[in-house]
């Protein structure tokens, strides 16, 4: 049986993308898989009694070494802020390519804590900073220094000791350009070095908390139980900075979604599902419920989604146990069709992620297809005709072409770059000034404009002639030829409409990162947790690939 790939007009709607969950394809999981047999080392740990100083961690294999350099600094209460406008943090980090020399560390000591206003070199690959969850960190120090383990319930409510507020890579602030490293096989998957940085930072937080507790009470202090460590991750606060990324990298976006869609299609096409695989699927599904019941948020929007997810999942599990026979042919296809009929988007996508768990043979080859050589698709095929371009628009943007942009609500917002932080922002076009400096992120509106312009141009004209008269539409002409080849490269929604929920865009990206427990703090930023339940570096060689569902929380 041949199953069709799911329709991009459905899957690429923001509400659907904003319902995606982590899966085996997620970058933090594929990072662990790739680096599990690398040699892990803590090369330097030079902190004072309060936990301030420098530490270096590394992964090594053959002649390749990646080193995380951590700088922990004193920060007064009134300086601590998760907002991107902060200028100081509890700790700052950079991932260095190779073994850093003393000179490198000295150089970086002056630059890394400054983050966006510091300068890195081609020897550094990623950059980040993080703040303590003070309440949790202090509680853990107090407990450990008194010789007892901290309150697990309190820890599980937060899920981490530190929160990062940005992770930068790919040439930002002088970091190495991607072209310098893109041919390294170990980093074929996207964001692998960003994931490495976060993973090392997680370990640093455990080492630091143990160190501070030990110094506080050398005689009595105990180390944080490794099992508690394993159940802690790294938090992350994410704002709108991430949203334009998925619009600005259409082929990359396509490759992420396409990998997921191909995996689903292949799983639905399995004629006879082996018992061991259906058992693993059911087992992961049941265990994963813990991740939902421990999902804390104040956001009414998210609470509603969690409630619907939990309700749908319980109905689904009931259906699986009472009314479903896995020995029938194309069982996963039947499950998928049942979900489409009986569940909301959040649950459908949750189960889609879960279906991948038993199938390394399907998922693993797809992981290496998730990067993109974007340059290859930059040139516009200007010898194509107006007729061909118009046909592409009609086929690929059929829903978008129906949006009426003369209505105020469809044109309500604009995206801009803030002058003080050079970060993307969203504002009301009719309330705020600055819309004349709008970023080219209103793709739906501009595609509609392109369609209108094409309809008064001669069908047989070539695109080079069209562009002479319509250079203001060049950016969307390029995109239209990209979507012709990459069906999942475009969000099929209006990114400037009144009803846009920008965190849907963040959620999409973060789900591919492998984040759990999305906690929206407004419609424009959210908190998440990464690597919660993941093996510690010493446990990597023999870790359970389904660790995501084995956390204590």
């Amino acid at each position, binding site marked *: 049986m041949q199953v069709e790939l799911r329709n991009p007009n459905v899957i690429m709607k923001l509400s659907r993308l904003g319902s995606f969950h982590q899966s085996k394809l997620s970058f933090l999981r594929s990072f662990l898989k790739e680096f599990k047999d690398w040699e892990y080392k803590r090369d330097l740990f030079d902190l004072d009694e309060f936990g301030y100083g420098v530490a270096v961690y590394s992964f090594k294999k053959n002649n390749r070494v990646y080193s995380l350099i951590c700088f922990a600094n004193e920060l007064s209460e009134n300086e601590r802020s998760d907002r991107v406008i902060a200028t100081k943090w509890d700790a700052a980090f950079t991932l260095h390519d190779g073994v850093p020399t003393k000179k490198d560390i000295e150089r970086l000591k002056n630059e890394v804590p400054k983050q966006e206003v510091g300068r890195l070199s081609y020897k550094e690959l990623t950059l980040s900073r993080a703040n303590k969850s003070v309440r949790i960190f202090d509680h853990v120090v107090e407990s450990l220094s008194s010789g007892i383990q901290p309150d697990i319930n309190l820890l599980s409510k937060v899920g981490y000791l530190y929160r990062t507020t940005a992770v930068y890579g790919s040439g930002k602030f002088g970091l190495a350009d991607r072209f310098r490293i893109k041919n390294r096989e170990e980093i074929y998957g996207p964001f692998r070095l960003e994931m490495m940085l976060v993973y090392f930072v997680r370990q640093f937080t455990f080492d630091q908390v143990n160190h501070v507790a030990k110094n506080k009470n050398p005689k009595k202090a105990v180390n944080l139980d490794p099992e508690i460590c394993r159940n802690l991750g790294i938090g992350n606060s994410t704002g709108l900075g991430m949203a334009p990324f998925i619009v600005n990298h259409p082929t990359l976006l396509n490759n992420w979604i396409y990998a997921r869609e191909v995996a689903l299609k292949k799983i639905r096409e399995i004629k006879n599902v082996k018992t061991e695989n259906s058992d693993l699927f059911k087992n992961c599904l049941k265990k994963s419920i813990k991740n939902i019941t421990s999902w804390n948020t104040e956001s009414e929007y998210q609470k509603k989604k969690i409630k619907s997810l939990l309700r749908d999942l319980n109905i689904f599990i009931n259906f699986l146990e009472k009314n479903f026979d896995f020995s029938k042919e194309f069982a996963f296809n039947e499950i998928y069709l049942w979900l489409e009929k009986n569940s909301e988007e959040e649950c459908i996508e949750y189960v889609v992620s879960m279906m991948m768990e038993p199938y390394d043979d399907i998922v693993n080859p797809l992981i290496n297809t998730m990067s993109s050589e974007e340059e290859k698709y930059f040139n516009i095929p200007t*010898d194509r005709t107006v007729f061909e371009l118009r046909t592409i628009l009609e086929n690929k943007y059929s829903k978008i072409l129906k949006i009426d942009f003369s209505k105020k609500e469809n044109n309500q917002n604009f995206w801009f770059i803030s002058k003080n932080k050079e970060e993307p922002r969203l504002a009301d076009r009719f309330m705020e000034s600055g819309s004349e400096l709008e970023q080219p992120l209103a793709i739906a509106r501009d595609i509609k404009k392109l369609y209108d312009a094409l309809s008064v141009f001669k069908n047989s004209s070539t695109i080079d002639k069209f562009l002479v008269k319509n250079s203001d539409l*060049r950016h969307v002409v390029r995109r239209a030829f990209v979507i012709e080849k990459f069906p999942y490269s475009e969000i099929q929604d209006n990114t400037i409409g009144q009803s846009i929920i920008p965190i849907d865009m963040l959620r999409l990206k973060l789900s591919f990162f492998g984040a759990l427990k999305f906690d929206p703090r407004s419609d424009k930023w959210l908190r998440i947790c990464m690597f919660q339940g993941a093996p510690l570096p010493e446990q990597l060689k023999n870790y359970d690939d389904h660790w995501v569902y084995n956390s204590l929380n």
Partner: protein
Amino acid sequence: MKSLSEIETVSKRSSKAAGFSWGIAEEVGKNIRILELFGLGGIKNLNYYFRVRNKRNFEKLHLVSNENKTAKLEFCPIIAGLNFLDQVRSLEILNEIIFEKIAYPLLFLPFVSRASEVIGKKIQLKIDNRVFLLNYNNSIYSNSLNEGIVEVGNNVLIKFQENKDSFEENEWRELYKLSENTFVEESDSLKQDGAGAGLTDND
């Protein structure tokens, strides 16, 4: 040192701020990255061009032909370059293309370099006495590097290079013969079994 990613982003944004559309600004960002990657003064020339552009007008060349002359104003290197790139598939039948007076011609160069990749042919670009051989946008060979700012190219000549060997047939044969010394002379039994198949393709 600035990364190429920073160079591309800043060039793109500044081009938009200078009055170009986002689509054209994206092209300029990509081009300045190419120039800087190949060691040519992209940022320097773009900066000066935008500075001058505030005070002076430039001619916009929309349809490129075999001879492109401007009566008074110099050609804008970005519009001329962009249209050359967009129209190159129909222009490659011309052996040579001449432009008179292109302002800041180094900004024109990356469009030609990218055009070389599009049509799969090397292109020779002469800007007065400076010669550049543009190899499918993979490399640039030139007699004129590190010149800083070039304000105008009075005579700019583009020559499409046919895809042909750069050597004589006898030179090839000589080298080929030498390479044969790595082969093993086959005995009858090797002829029979060495390839793993029969002596003919259809037995």
